[in-house]
């Protein structure tokens, strides 16, 4: 593929709808990869609070907090983006697609910031 062809490929996929689809897909994938670990850790609560607290201690690490922030943002983004897809599919067409995509991103950023703010208190 020549540079120009590659540029064309990127350009033909750079419209807002494609970016929204890609972000929705990648956030969904990230959540699906994370979910088994999430369940595993919580499932260990069956063995009593001690096991869970050990984990939570480990999770206080700033790097883990960063990961959590990413996941919270991904969840918010995927939910908002998912509602957007449902609206396209099940509500009358709206010409304000770009506005809705922006709202989804804004919602995810807001949720992520709230999480960071809250985590700083904790």
């Amino acid at each position, binding site marked *: 593929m*020549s540079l*120009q*062809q*590659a*540029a*064309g*490929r*990127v*350009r*033909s*996929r750079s*419209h807002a*709808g*494609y970016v*929204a*689809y890609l972000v929705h*897909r990648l956030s969904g994938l990230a959540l699906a990869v994370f979910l088994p670990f999430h369940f595993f850790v919580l499932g260990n609560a069956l063995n009593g609070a001690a096991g869970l607290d050990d984990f939570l201690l480990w999770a206080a690490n700033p790097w883990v907090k960063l990961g959590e922030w990413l996941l919270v943002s991904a969840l918010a983004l995927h939910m908002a983006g998912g509602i957007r*897809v449902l609206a*396209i*599919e*099940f509500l009358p*067409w709206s010409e304000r*697609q770009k506005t809705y995509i922006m709202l989804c991103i804004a919602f995810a950023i807001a949720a992520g910031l709230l999480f960071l703010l809250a985590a700083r208190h904790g």
Partner: protein
Amino acid sequence: MAEFLTVDIWRGGAEGQLQRFDVPRSDNQTVLDVVTHVQKVLEPSLAYRFACRVGMCGSCAMMVNGKARWTCRTHVKKVAADGRLTLEPLANLPRIRDLVADLAPFFDKWQAAGGQFKPQAELGDDFAIVPPSGAARRQADEAIECIGCAVCYASCDVVAGQPDYLGPAALNRAWTLMNDGRDGAQDERLKAVSGAGGCQNCHTQQGCRDACPKGLNPTRSIAGLKRMSLMALIEGRL
């Protein structure tokens, strides 16, 4: 304005390479004008398609700098600001020769999606009256303007990844017939558009809508089919 355009054109079928031509610039030049110049003056063996030259027949579409476009209505100055053009046959379709893509899979899918009108009426029945203001007719108003150019098909990422996906144009066609009060194959067609390659594969990316030279919105038509198919499923008609 530079005096010459640097034009790279695909030569060969599935296997092949780009060949470079220098084409003189002129006012109001379209991409089709460029290809025609190459074929008439520089390389008579170049294969390409066109017919109407005015955006009606849908035969001249190809990849222009990586993007699917009709070429007869695409001005060079809009797409080649830097004086360079790369032309290839439409994506997501087999390549026959040079700029000619094999559209058989594209139109086969129109058939597979129930793209044929099946009349309900018997011979001798009265004329069916379809008021232009009727709700169903208005749903199909825009979608019937499709010229079958396959630009949307070449621009759809799901077609690229899921070869049996019927694609935006065939589904858009099916949507027009689902809103045709005279049609007598409604449930049959819903079955055709909701199978393995059906409307539910569309991820509403709107690549088709962005690319359609007629400004149509297959995404919306497909969403309509999704709703109809789900209703039919729940009501046991699928």
